[in-house]
């Protein structure tokens, strides 16, 4: 049973609820609607209990509530082993705990849980606003902990001030730990947040897919270069290769999709590198896409962990990118690689695959061209010229029917990149040239201040690659034929009026805002670069920069030096703080004398005057009589008559005479007596 002192006062309750609310607020949108309501109801109930209008729920009622809540969770979540059910479970345990929030222990449990809930927020998002909000939660929760201490501490200003002070004092050590503490990889596989919808380039392409992406200006990639930067028309960030066409949708198909027979080289060096060095070195920071596809310039090689290369020169991650992910890439553009292995039969067949029937008009048109004896490159040129002459590039292409290629090529003649890429590859395959659709991003905005390339979702793009014997895979961008500015300057200039037309406010037209947005993205990039993507590799780099060379000795120094300094400071302060107010020197010396006399067996009483004490010493220990008298006289003169000479005399007396006076011989006498 809790004693009265352990019962929670009103301020404690309010603080706990405030802390819970702050920790839960961002989770509310993610949770099933009934969970926040249940929480609010529990809070209401507990406050009613505090006002004395209601009792705490009984055992049966509690069991019923637990059952109801578990049933509710089971109904809301099919999958148990995932992040959202975990957060929901924590919230629910808050709720239940509120119904039996009685003692200080309950309060502690509740607040410690709140820390954990606040942390789960970061698993979902690691952006600056979330980080700031998380910090706010921690401040409030810590303040709530402080407020549990009592009336004075529970005042909002005091509690928050205390909390801020504590956290501020903790910050230097936190930064040190952040830099120094080793990061182990995941100890076991954990459920990921799968709640949000997929964005970005998907693993299939049907007409209209990329149009959807063109409406989003969310950042997709941030790329910083170490060395030369590719010109705008070379910035093709390859992510997916579609080889299989079913008449409407392009897919990766068997043998290309790493999840479906596609070969992936996880270890570096498994695939021979070109003879010359790479042309581009860069780091890509990819936003969460919830897919394993990574984006890089053609023929990429990456040494980052979890990243592998596919046969068709792409990068994939072993697990989907659930949160921002950074990887280092080296790229060899195709023209640097002179030696080309011939295309295998299986590859050739795969890249010539077409549905058995459909789009007859296109097939016929291509047949005509072939019959005129044109080679692969001429047919391509013909086709591109046709695009250039007769087609328009639009963000709002008309809907297409069953024979989508035919309808596009000979009917609507309006389309977006996927129409051009799809129809081009179809035509080339029909002409017997191995071809494939490549999807990814094209272009990017150069952010001058931070020296990186910002690629947004609307930079998503699809293009084609054809196989030319002796020259290998060649990139062909049919969109460039119809709208070269798309490739050179980006979507905004190519689509003109149509660009971002659906957005609520045409913010992209206001110059200042565009600049501000770039600034904000720069800050975000910085944030991501320094904080979020700080992994063991970066840690090593940082330490190397700090220490020059990461040897255990230097590591120990880095860690030990500030620690030792801080400890010394604290120790000095502890010593200083515990010291009594300095006594006047004479009294201090006299105290010393009294202590020695006490050790010799004559203890001074509190109210005893020095003279009386000296007389008592003389009576009890005649050997010490002269000494005691001299010390007493000197002390009285020093302490009460203010003679400075007497003080030094006293000091002298205590230094020399006493040492010999309470000599071993004397001690023997003491022991004997």
């Amino acid at each position, binding site marked *: 049973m809790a004693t009265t002192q352990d019962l929670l006062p009103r301020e404690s309750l309010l603080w706990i609820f405030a802390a819970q609310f702050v920790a839960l607020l961002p989770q509310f949108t993610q949770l099933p609607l009934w969970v926040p309501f249940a929480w609010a109801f529990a809070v209401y109930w507990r406050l009613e209990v505090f006002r004395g209008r209601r009792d705490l729920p009984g055992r049966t009622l509690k069991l019923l509530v637990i059952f109801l809540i578990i049933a509710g969770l089971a109904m809301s979540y099919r999958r148990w082993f995932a992040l959202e059910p975990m957060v929901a479970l924590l919230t629910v345990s808050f709720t239940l705990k509120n119904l039996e929030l009685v003692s200080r222990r309950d309060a502690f449990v509740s607040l410690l849980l709140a820390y954990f809930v606040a942390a789960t927020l970061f698993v979902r998002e690691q952006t600056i606003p979330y980080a700031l909000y998380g910090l706010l939660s921690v401040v409030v929760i810590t303040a709530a902990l402080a407020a549990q201490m009592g009336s004075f501490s529970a005042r909002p200003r005091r509690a928050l001030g205390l909390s801020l002070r504590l956290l501020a004092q903790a910050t230097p050590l936190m930064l040190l730990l952040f830099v120094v503490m080793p990061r182990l990889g995941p100890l076991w596989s954990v459920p990921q947040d799968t709640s949000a919808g997929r964005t970005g380039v998907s693993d299939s392409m049907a007409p209209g897919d990329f149009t959807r992406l063109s409406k989003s200006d969310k950042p997709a990639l941030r790329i910083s270069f170490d060395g030369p930067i590719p010109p705008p028309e070379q910035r093709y960030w390859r992510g997916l290769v579609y080889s299989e066409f079913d008449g409407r949708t392009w897919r990766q198909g068997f043998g290309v999709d790493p999840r479906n027979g596609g070969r992936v080289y996880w270890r570096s060096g498994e695939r021979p590198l070109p003879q010359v060095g790479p042309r581009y070195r860069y780091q890509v920071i990819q936003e969460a896409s919830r897919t394993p596809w990574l984006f890089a310039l053609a023929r990429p090689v990456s040494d980052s962990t979890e990243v592998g290369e596919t046969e068709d020169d792409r990068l994939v991650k072993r697990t989907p990118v659930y949160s921002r992910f950074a990887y280092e890439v080296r790229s060899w553009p195709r023209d640097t690689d002179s030696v080309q292995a011939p295309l295998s039969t299986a590859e050739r067949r795969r890249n010539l695959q077409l549905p058995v029937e459909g789009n007859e008009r296109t097939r016929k048109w291509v047949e005509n061209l072939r019959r005129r004896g044109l080679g692969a490159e001429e047919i391509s040129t013909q086709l591109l010229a046709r695009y250039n002459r007769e087609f328009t590039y639009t963000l709002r292409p008309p809907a297409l029917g069953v024979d989508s290629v035919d309808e596009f090529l000979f009917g609507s003649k309006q389309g977006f990149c996927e129409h051009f890429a799809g129809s081009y590859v179809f035509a080339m395959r029909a002409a017997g040239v191995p071809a494939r659709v490549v999807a990814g991003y094209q272009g990017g905005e150069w952010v001058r201040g931070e020296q990186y390339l910002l690629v947004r979702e609307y930079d998503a793009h699809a293009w084609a690659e054809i196989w030319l014997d002796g020259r290998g895979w060649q990139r062909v961008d049919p969109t460039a034929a119809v709208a070269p500015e798309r490739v050179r300057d980006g979507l905004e200039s190519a689509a003109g009026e149509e660009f971002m037309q659906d957005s609520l406010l045409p913010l992209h037209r206001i110059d200042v805002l565009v600049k501000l947005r770039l600034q904000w993205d720069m800050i975000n990039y910085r944030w991501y670069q320094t904080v979020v993507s700080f992994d063991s590799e970066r840690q090593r780099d940082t330490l190397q920069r700090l220490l020059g060379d990461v040897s255990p000795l230097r590591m120990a120094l880095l860690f030990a030096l500030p620690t030792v300094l801080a400890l010394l400071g604290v120790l000095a302060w502890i010593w200083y703080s515990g010291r009594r107010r300095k006594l006047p020197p004479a*009294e201090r010396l006299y105290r010393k004398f009294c202590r020695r006399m006490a050790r010799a067996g004559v203890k001074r009483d509190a*109210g005893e*005057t020095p003279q009386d004490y000296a007389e008592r010493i003389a009576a009890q220990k005649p050997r010490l009589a002269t000494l005691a008298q001299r010390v007493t006289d000197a002390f009285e003169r020093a302490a009460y008559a*203010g003679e400075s000479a007497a003080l030094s005399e006293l000091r002298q007396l205590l230094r020399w005479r006493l040492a010999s006076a309470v000599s071993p011989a004397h001690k023997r006498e003491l022991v004997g007596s």
Partner: protein
Amino acid sequence: MQKIVSAIVSDIGSVLLGKERQVKLALACLLSKGHLLIEDLPGMGKTTLAHALAQVLGLSYKRVQFTSDMLPADILGVSIFDRESGQFHFHEGPVFSQVLLADEINRSSPKTQSALLEAMEECQVSVDGETRLLPQPFFVIATQNPLQQSGTFALPESQLDRFLMRISLGYPTREAERALYLGTDPRQQLAKLKPRIDLATLRKMQSLVGQVKTSDSLLNYLERLVLHTRQSPDCAVGLSPRGALALLRAAKAWALLHNRGHVLPEDIQAVLPSVAGHRLQGEGGNGDQLVERLVRQVDIIAA
């Protein structure tokens, strides 16, 4: 200085046998310009002490026996109409003297008591709208019968505070009493006493009291003592700042009497019972017991 003091003390000691300590206290009280209250049974030598003190110091001396029917005018004096000159003449009361023995002060009514006490405090008397200064030095020795005796009006605390010290003479020691029986009549001896100092010397001695040094250590001790009386649950009422000042002044005078230019803790301890005894009261016994405990509990050396 020391010679004068010992001469005075021995002179008075010849009439008041075995009371050297009380004599010194009375002297200290006089030197620190305070007034003295003697609480004792009748016949213990209160009057002798007062008279001898006045005699030895060469001061004028008057004695008033307080009774219950006494009026303020009996002490202060009264204006009498002189028919010949047709004017009022002020007849000075006994208060106009340098040493006044107010005998059995607690037998008079509170009104008369306060008339005297006011005069003590202000060193002046206001009669019929005219203010008259009292002679200097002005030293009142009041005696008080133990409170249990019947027919007494107890002095209120605020009045007690006007007295710098309260002492009691107590029975003489056995030797002193024997000597008393054998010796001559004290009254005759009293008449034989000669003044040892003149007024100027007394004034100088009084001013010397102010020059006695008090070190920080000593003031700290004083502060601890005073604080203890205020904090200790034993004492219902602690020492007032006036009480603390009185203590310090008395201790200085005591140090001076012992020919020292600075105050020692034992000086404070010596005067503490007489200075603080009547100012303290509390649950834990009477003032003297409290003082005794106070001395035992408060450390002389700072901790």
